[in-house]
């Protein structure tokens, strides 16, 4: 079976499942099945079949499991949102269409990984700008400056910015990898590269601290720093960088804890939300109650106690940050663990792409994108189940939020592109055929470029 056929085979049950979900929510609401519920289902079948056909043309050899997982996650998200509020679901559906369009556009324009590598500095600067633009022009919502309003559309540029920065760092680390691993001097027995090669580490640290200070955004800051640290570790294989990074981050975070109220509040709530269960601890306490109400099997789609009579959700930000709690209540432990496993399989497939890659850039790109994706899922799920302090970020593909959906489809497209490249290379090596005229991404090139940009 070819990769794409396999993709289709997995896509179909995922979409049937979601259509059933819509039907279930709809029947619970109006006690009868009307075409409206099936229209939603039909729409998403069509959308993902188009995405699948796009992959057939644009990324024939790409991993066949990532798209079905995405389909399941994003349509499950929309079922949950639809269950909460129909207008919100319509908005989300539009963003899903936009996301899939962007997905195909990225696959179409980035036909070649070279495009990314060659424009790494433009991508880096664009990423930086997107990450910081809201600090200047943004408006503050829920205590974080993350939003940019363009007409009626609210957008969170940092969502896209952080992905672009991962791409940039993957490319840049290929440039300087050799130097980072070849140490030239030792201080107290620790091999240290020249100071300027510690610069990337210090830069990402400074950036993440700036995110926390200026945008009051713990989540993006942690995510960004964690993903780039993972990337640095993969690139160098040195725990030293990781340790220095963690020490730096902890030092910075401790300082911020004492300097900034919002950091303190988050941590205090995590330590003991029961001190003020109807005030500061309300959100997390209600999240735990929702999960407890779900139990092992859940209360069933559409049957959870999620909204008040006024239509307001009991847990504030249920459709974004806390959507996992809603899933936990309605689908139970079984459904919630299912979601966690979907993320896990996604991460597993992502690292597989990375491990299979023979060259540095695709390898680092896949590792970086997978890390930031996996870390985001971990941080928000861990936050709402009170495993770690809560950071307000979205659950990839599931939460309501246009920028998040679009950003994650860009991430998926790049990951599939990397996968397609890696698999193509592999099959070429297995059966030597006509050269496709692509340049190598081997270390040779990296070192060559290092001399161009680095030293």
């Amino acid at each position: 079976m070819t990769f794409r056929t396999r993709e289709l085979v997995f896509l179909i049950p995922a979409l049937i499942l979601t259509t059933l979900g819509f039907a279930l929510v709809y029947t619970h609401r109006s006690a009868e099945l009307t075409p409206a519920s099936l229209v939603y289902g039909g729409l998403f079948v069509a959308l993902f079949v188009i995405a699948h056909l796009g992959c057939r043309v644009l990324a024939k050899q790409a991993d066949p499991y990532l798209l079905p997982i995405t389909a399941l996650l994003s349509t499950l998200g929309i079922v949950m949102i639809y269950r909460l509020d129909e207008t919100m679901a319509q908005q989300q559906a539009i963003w899903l269409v936009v996301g899939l369009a962007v997905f195909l556009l990225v696959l179409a324009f980035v036909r070649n990984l070279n495009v990314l590598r060659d424009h790494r500095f433009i991508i880096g600067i664009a990423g930086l700008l997107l990450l910081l633009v809201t600090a200047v022009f943004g408006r503050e919502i829920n205590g974080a400056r993350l939003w940019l309003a363009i007409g009626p559309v609210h957008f969170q540029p940092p969502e896209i910015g952080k992905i672009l920065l991962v791409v940039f760092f993957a490319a840049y680390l290929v440039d300087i990898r050799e130097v980072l691993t070849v140490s030239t001097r030792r201080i107290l027995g620790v091999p240290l590269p020249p100071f300027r090669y510690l610069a990337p580490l210090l830069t990402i640290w400074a950036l993440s601290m700036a995110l926390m200070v200026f945008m009051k955004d713990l989540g993006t800051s942690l995510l960004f720093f964690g993903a780039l640290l993972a990337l640095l570790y993969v690139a160098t294989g040195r725990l030293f960088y990781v340790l220095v990074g963690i020490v730096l981050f902890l030092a910075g975070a401790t300082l911020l804890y004492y300097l900034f109220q919002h950091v303190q509040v988050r941590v205090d709530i995590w330590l003991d939300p029961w001190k003020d269960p109807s005030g500061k601890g309300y959100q997390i306490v209600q999240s735990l109650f929702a999960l407890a109400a779900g139990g092992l099997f859940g209360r069933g789609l559409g049957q959870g106690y999620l909204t008040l009579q006024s239509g307001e959700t009991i847990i504030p930000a249920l459709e974004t940050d806390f959507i996992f709690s809603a899933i936990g209540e309605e689908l139970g432990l079984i459904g919630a663990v299912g979601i966690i496993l979907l993320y896990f399989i996604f991460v597993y497939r992502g690292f597989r792409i990375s491990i299979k890659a023979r060259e540095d850039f695709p390898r680092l790109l896949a590792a970086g994108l997978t890390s930031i994706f996996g870390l985001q899922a971990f941080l928000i799920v861990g936050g709402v189940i009170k495993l770690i302090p809560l950071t307000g970020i979205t659950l990839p593909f599931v939460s309501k939020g246009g920028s998040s959906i679009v950003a994650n489809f860009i991430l998926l497209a790049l990951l599939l592109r990397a996968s397609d490249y890696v698999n193509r290379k592999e099959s070429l090596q297995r059966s030597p055929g006509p050269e496709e005229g692509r340049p190598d991404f081997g270390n040779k090139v990296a070192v060559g470029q290092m001399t161009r940009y680095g030293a």
Partner: protein
Amino acid sequence: MDKSLRRLFLIFTLMFLALIVRLTYVQVWAAPGLKVNPSNTRAIEEEMKVDRGAIISADGVELAVNHQQGEYFFREYPQGDLTSPWLGYNSLQYGRAGIERVYNEDLSGQSGILGLTNYWDQILNRPHRGADLKLTINMSVQKAAANALGNRKGAVVALDPRTGAVLAMVSYPRYDPNKLDDLWKQLNSDPDTPLLNRAAQGLYPPGSVFKMVVAGAALQENAVSPDTIFQDTGTVTAGGYVVRNYGGNVYGSHDFAQAFAKSINTTFAKVGVALGADTLARYAGDFGFGETPPWPLAGAKSVFPDPGTMDKAHVAQASFGQGEVLTTPLEMALVASAVANGGKIMKPYIVDQVLDYHQKVLEETHSQTWMQPLTPETAATLKQLMIGVVTGGTGTSAAISGVQVAGKTGTAEVENGEPHAWFAAFAPANDPQVVVAVLVENSGTGGSVAAPVARQVISAALGLQ
């Protein structure tokens, strides 16, 4: 590079494993505790989806109903404060009391066959209906009793002596259960304790109304007969304690029937001392003192002191219901019901039937004997004495033309203020259908204050108004 990638994947594996472990802990292990956490309002939400059963009086008046808003049901009490002492409340904030608490399993449809249909309702996603309750309360009697008592602190109990069915139970002050959530703090700090059902939970010195017990004991023990002659000089001394008649009256030569009708303390002190502490205590116990009344709602134990600790002075005081004797209006109604019912006290009850929504009877209360303190003969003799109270004694203001009323007054002296006025009565004397006990706190004599209240309640119960 492969090694660091594999390690990184291992870290992610451990992180996701931690998520699953923690999630399992929250959703399975900690869930029971979280569900009953006081901050958790989800159980309330579950309850609000249940179409709680209606509560209806014996004469078909709706006492507790629901109104539906969306998928939720809200409790309403159409009779307002009139029913609160026994109906209680079903508050989402403050829990339940009274019948709403005791019969919650029936009302919310959790017990018996309705508990099974609950699952079916859940599957079909339709509101679950609880069982309805039909009470023994007769709202016309209840209203008459509430009107007769008015805004005086006290209580009225009316029951059917033949079955124990409670016909009316009034306590004042009381509260409007519809406004409970707003009034809660105020109600709890009110020194007049409006949340207390004085009829069953209020303990008071009974005064002379307790002479029903003493006379019953004396007659049954053959210590006296109605025409045993006594001499009254206005006082009698027992163990150094000087007993006086109420109002300082002196009655001279009289028989026991007159002593009962006029409520002569000196004679009862003599009779009580002659019977002794042990006999009095035994009869008090036989009438239900020292036990919580066997009825579904809350009630206080009436108190007769331990005979071992009583000297003659104590016995003399106890003989006319003073000293350390304490009782509830419900208990006094039960004592009178023994006289009315041939010596037998029936278990009081307030819920007659539990019905499903097709009005099919699921459960029915059958009357049961609680105690038999007197023989039918003694009861008949005592009944004659009680008739004498109304025809020519202290309780003449309870008399109703055309109906023979039997009763006993009580004027319980308290440390500060006016005495508590008591009256316990039943009618018609030859075929008792209703027994009434009235208590009005700090209001005067039983004959002048409590007996007229009893008269109105009896009239209502016999359909004379």
